[in-house]
C-alpha cells in the first residue's frame, strides 16, 4: 500500500532554519565548482546572509511546534538556543576577514562546512529524538574536526585528531546509551523514555544507571565536564583563537540543551544517585578547572580552562532544574557569548604568523606585559572582558551569575551557591593575572601595533559590538529575561 503524506502534516516551518543552512552550504559548494577565484569576503558575506535568513525563520516559530513525524521539536528552548547558536555564528564568520591571510579562510569549503556544522547543532537542539540528535551531533562534530585541521599548523592537525578520537569515543558512548534506553523503554524519544521509566519505577535500576552514565559521559565529552575535559585546552591551543572562542560557546550550548531535555526530567525523579552524580560533576568541573587555570602560562589555555569552569557553572542550572535556573542558564550563556567571543577575538587580532614570544605558545602572559602603556585602548577592552569573565559588576556575566546563584539559593542549594561564590573568588585570580600583566608591568613591545597586527575593520566592529554588549548589559538584561522566560516557560521547563 502506498504511503501518502500530506505536505502540511510535515510542518515544513520546523525544519526551515536548518534547511536554509544546508541549502546555503550546498550553494557555496556549487558556486565554487563554477567560479574558483572568488574572495573569502564573498563567502563570508554569503554565509552571514544565509544565517540571517535562518534567524528570521527561527524567529517566525511560535515556540511550540512539532513536525516531520514529531522528529522535530521546535519548543521554546529550541528557539532560544537556536538563536544563541545562530547569533554566535553570525558574529564568528566575519572574523575570517582578518588582515593577515590564514589558510583555512581562503577555501570555500570552510564556509560550506561551517554552515553544515551550524545546521547540525540546530538539529541537536530542536529534537527530542535520540537518533536525530545523534545525527546532528555527528554532522556538526565531523565538520568541526575538519575545520580545526584546516588551520594547517602542526598543532592544529594534532588538535583535530585529538578531538576526533575523543569525539569518536563520545559518539560510541552516546550510541550505547541510546541503545540501552531503547532496550529499556522501546523508544528513542526522550519524552516517551522518561514516561515509561516513571511508570515502571525505574526498574531495572542497573539498566537506567548504565544508560544515564553512558549519556553523561558522552555529553560530558562535548561539554568538557571534568573528567572528560582533557582534550579541551589542547584543542583550543591548536585551533585558531577565533575558532576556539566559537568552540567554547556553540557546541556547548547544543550539548547543554540535550542534557537539559534528558537529565532535568530524570534529576527530578527522586533517584538520588543521579542528583549526586550531577552535583559532583558540577562542583569538580567548576573547582578543578579553576585550579588548573591558575597555573597556565598561556592566555588561550587559561581561557580554555576558564570556559570549562563556566560550563561547570551553568551545568548547575541543570542540577537545580527550576524554571528560574533554566532562564538563568540561557541568560548566563548569552552574556558569556559576547564576553568570551570578545576575549578570543582580542587574541585573534593579536595573532602573528610566527611565535615571537615563546617557542610553543602564541599568547603567553608575558606578551601582554605593559600593554596599557603602548596600546591603552586595546588593553582597556581586554581588561573589561577579563573583569566580565571574572563576574565583576556591572559587566555582563555578573548578571547571569547573579541570576543563577539566586536560582540555586531559591531552590535550597545554599551549599552549591557558596561553592559557586568561592569559585568566583578563585577565578578572579587568573583573570586578574592578565590584567596585572597588562596594566601593572613594564612594557615589552615598543609600539602597540603588535597587539593589533591581525586587525581589520570587520574584526574591530565585532569586538566593538561585543564590548558594548558587555558594558551595557544592565540596560537589556530585564527585557532579555522576559524574552527567555516566555519561551522557557512555554516549553514547560
Amino acid at each position, binding site marked *: 500500500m502506498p504511503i501518502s503524506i500530506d505536505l502540511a502534516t510535515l510542518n515544513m516551518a520546523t525544519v526551515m532554519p536548518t534547511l536554509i543552512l544546508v541549502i546555503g552550504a550546498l550553494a557555496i559548494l556549487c558556486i565554487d565548482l563554477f567560479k574558483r577565484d572568488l574572495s573569502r569576503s564573498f563567502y563570508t558575506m554569503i554565509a552571514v546572509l544565509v544565517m540571517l535568513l535562518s534567524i528570521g525563520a527561527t524567529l517566525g516559530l511560535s515556540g511550540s511546534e512539532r513536525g516531520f513525524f514529531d522528529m522535530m521539536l521546535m519548543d521554546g528552548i529550541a528557539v532560544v538556543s537556536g538563536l544563541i547558536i545562530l547569533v554566535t555564528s553570525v558574529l564568528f564568520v566575519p572574523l575570517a576577514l582578518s588582515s593577515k591571510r590564514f589558510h583555512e579562510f581562503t577555501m570555500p569549503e570552510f564556509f560550506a562546512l561551517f554552515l553544515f556544522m551550524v545546521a547540525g547543532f540546530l538539529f541537536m537542539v530542536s529534537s527530542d529524538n535520540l537518533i536525530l540528535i545523534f545525527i546532528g551531533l555527528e554532522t556538526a562534530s565531523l565538520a568541526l574536526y575538519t575545520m580545526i585541521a584546516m588551520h594547517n599548523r602542526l598543532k592544529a592537525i594534532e588538535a583535530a585528531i585529538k578531538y576526533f578520537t575523543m569525539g569518536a569515543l563520545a559518539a560510541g558512548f552516546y550510541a550505547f546509551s541510546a541503545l540501552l534506553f531503547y532496550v529499556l523503554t522501546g523508544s528513542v524519544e526522550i519524552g516517551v523514555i522518561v514516561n515509561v521509566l516513571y511508570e515502571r519505577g525505574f526498574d531495572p535500576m542497573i539498566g537506567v544507571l548504565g544508560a544515564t552514565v553512558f549519556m553523561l559521559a558522552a555529553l560530558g565529552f562535548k561539554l568538557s565536564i571534568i573528567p572528560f575535559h582533557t582534550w579541551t585546552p589542547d584543542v583550543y591551543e591548536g585551533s585558531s583563537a577565533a575558532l576556539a572562542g566559537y568552540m567554547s560557546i556553540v557546541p556547548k550550548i547544543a550539548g547543554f540543551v540535550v542534557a537539559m531535555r534528558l537529565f532535568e526530567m530524570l534529576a527530578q525523579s527522586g533517584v538520588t544517585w543521579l542528583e549526586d552524580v550531577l552535583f559532583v560533576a558540577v562542583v569538580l568541573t567548576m573547582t578543578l578547572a579553576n585550579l588548573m587555570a591558575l597555573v597556565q602560562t598561556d592566555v588561550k589555555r587559561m581561557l580554555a580552562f576558564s570556559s570549562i569552569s563556566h560550563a561547570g557553572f551553568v551545568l548547575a542550572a541543570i542540577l537545580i532544574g527550576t524554571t528560574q535556573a533554566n532562564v538563568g542558564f540561557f541568560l548566563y550563556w548569552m552574556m558569556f557569548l559576547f564576553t568570551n567571543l570578545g576575549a578570543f577575538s582580542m587574541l585573534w587580532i593579536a595573532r602573528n604568523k610566527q611565535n615571537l614570544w615563546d617557542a610553543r605558545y602564541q599568547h603567553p602572559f608575558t606578551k601582554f606585559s605593559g600593554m*596599557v*602603556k603602548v596600546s*591603552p585602548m586595546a588593553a582597556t577592552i581586554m581588561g573589561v572582558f577579563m*573583569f566580565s569573565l571574572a563576574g*565583576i*559588576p*556591572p559587566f555582563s556575566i*555578573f*548578571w547571569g551569575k*547573579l*541570576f543563577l*546563584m*539566586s536560582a540555586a*539559593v*531559591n531552590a535550597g542549594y*545554599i551549599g552549591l*551557591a*557558596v561553592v559557586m*561564590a*568561592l569559585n*568566583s*573568588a578563585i577565578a*578572579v*585570580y587568573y583573570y*586578574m593575572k592578565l*590584567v*596585572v600583566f597588562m*596594566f*601593572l*608591568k613594564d612594557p615589552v613591545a615598543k609600539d602597540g601595533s603588535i597587539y593589533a597586527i591581525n586587525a581589520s575593520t570587520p574584526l574591530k566592529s565585532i569586538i566593538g559590538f561585543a564590548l558594548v554588549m558587555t558594558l551595557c548589559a*544592565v540596560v537589556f*538584561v*530585564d527585557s532579555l*529575561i*522576559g524574552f527567555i*522566560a516566555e519561551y522557557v516557560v512555554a516549553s514547560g521547563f
Partner: protein
Amino acid sequence: MDHILSLIIFFPAFAGLLGFVVHKESAKAYAISVAAIELCLTLWLWVGFDATNAGFQFVEYAPLISQFGVSYYLGVDGISLFLVILSAFMTLIALIGLSVKEDVKNLVISVLFLEMTMVGVFLSLDVILFYVFWEMSLLPMLYIIGAWGSGERIYAAVKFFLYTFFGSVFMLVGILFMAYLYFQTTGVWSFALPDWHLLQVPYDFQLWLFGAFFLGFAIKVPMVPFHTWLPYAHGQAPTIGSVILAAVLLKMGTYGFVRFSLPLFPDAAVTFMIPIAIVAIVMVIYAAMIAYAQEDMKQVIAYSSISHMGIIVLGTFALNAEGITGSIFLMISHGIVSGALFMLVGVIYERRHTKKMSEFGGLASVMPGFATVFGIMLMGSVGLPLTIGFVGEFLALMGFFKVSMVLTALAGTGIILGAIYMLTLYKRSFFGVITNEANRGLSDLNSRELTALVPLVALVVLLGVYPKPILGPVDASVKKMISLMEQKAERQETKLLLKDVNTVGEVR
C-alpha cells in the same frame, strides 16, 4: 535638587571620561577642578538637607531589572551624608597634594572613577546597586596601588583585591538569600533596602546572614584576623592611594555594619555583640602594639588605622545612640586625621625617599611648619580633647560603657598605647638634634602641600571644638535606626537589651 544624588555619583565618572581628552600637563588641574565642583555639589546637598528629617531624603527610584527586583534607588540620610562629603573632600585634598609626575593622567582618571564608586556605595539604597559600586571600587584601587606603588606593589595590589573580593562574594550569597526570604514573605522580588528594613528575619537565618555580610564588611574594615592586607597595601601604595584608602575605603566596611548588619539582623547583632566587641578590642590593643614595634612611619600609621577602626567597630556594636553616633563621627574624624598623616608621610618621603624613623631626628628644627602640622594631626589621632579625634572616641567608648565597663576599660588602654606609639614616633623623628646630615637641608612645606593640609588642620580644630553640625543629623538618623531595630527584633532578649543600653544613667 531633584537628581542631585545621581549628579553627585556620576559627575566625577563622566568628568573622568572626558578627562581622556585633556592634555597630560593639565590633567592634575582638571582633576582638582572636577573634585572641587564635586565637593561644592555635596555641600549643596548638605545645605538642602533637612536635618530634622531622620529618614532618607532626595530619594531617586527607577526600576532596573524589574523582573528580578533590582532598581536604581538612591537616598541620603544623616548617616551617609557626611561620609559622602568626606569622600568628596578627601579626594580633593588628595588631588591637591598629588606629586606624582609619571602617567599622571591615568592616575587622576582612576581617582575620579574611584570617587564615583565611593560616593555610590554611600548613596545606594538598592543592595545590588550597592554591591556593584562596592566591587567596582576595587578596580581603580588595584590600578593605583599596582601601577604607582613602590617595591612589591603588584603583590600588595593583588592581595588587596583578592582579600576584599573573597569577602564580598559571601556577602553576595547573603544578599541573594535575603532577597529570597523577602520573596517568600511578600511574593515580590526586591533588593531595596527600605523594603528589607520592614522584613523580620527568623533568628536562625539572621545568624547565618549576619555572618555572610559580616565577612564582607570585616575584611574591608579590616578586622583581625583579616587585616593582613592593609599594612601591605599602605606600605606599597602611593600617597594618594593611602590617603583615599585610609580616609574613605575602610569606612565602607563600618558603614556596611551600620547600614546593613544592625537594622537587618538586630537579634544576631545582639547575639554577636560581645564576641565582636572582643575582636574589636583585640584589634585596638594588638594593632597598637604592632604599631609601636614598627620602624617605618607609614606602617605605624597603617597599624594605628587598624587600631582606630577597632574603636569604631566597638562603638557601632554598643547598639545605642551614643556609640553609633560616636563611631560615625569617628569615621569622619579618622578619615581626616589619617588622610592627613599619610599625606605628611608622603611629604617627607618625597624629600628623603625613606620612611624609616631611624633616618630622621631633629626635623622640628629644619621643618618647623611640617612639625607643627604633624603635631596637630598627632593630637587629633590620639584623641586629645578639643581635637576632632576626641569627640568620636569619647562617644564611642561612652556608648560601650553602658554595655560593659570592663571591655570599655580595656579599649581605653588602646588609646593610651596610641599615645605612646604616636609620641614615640614624634620624638624619634622630630625632636633632638639632627643626627643625619642628609636632613639638614630639607625644605619646609611648600605652598601646594600647605594648601592641602591647612584645611585639614582647620577642620581638626573646628570640629573638635564644635562638632554639633555633624552630630545633630547623624544622631537623628541613628535614633531612627535603633527604634527600627527594636521594632523588628524577634526575641524578647534583644528588645530588653536595646532598651537597656539606650537608657541614660544605668551601668551594668
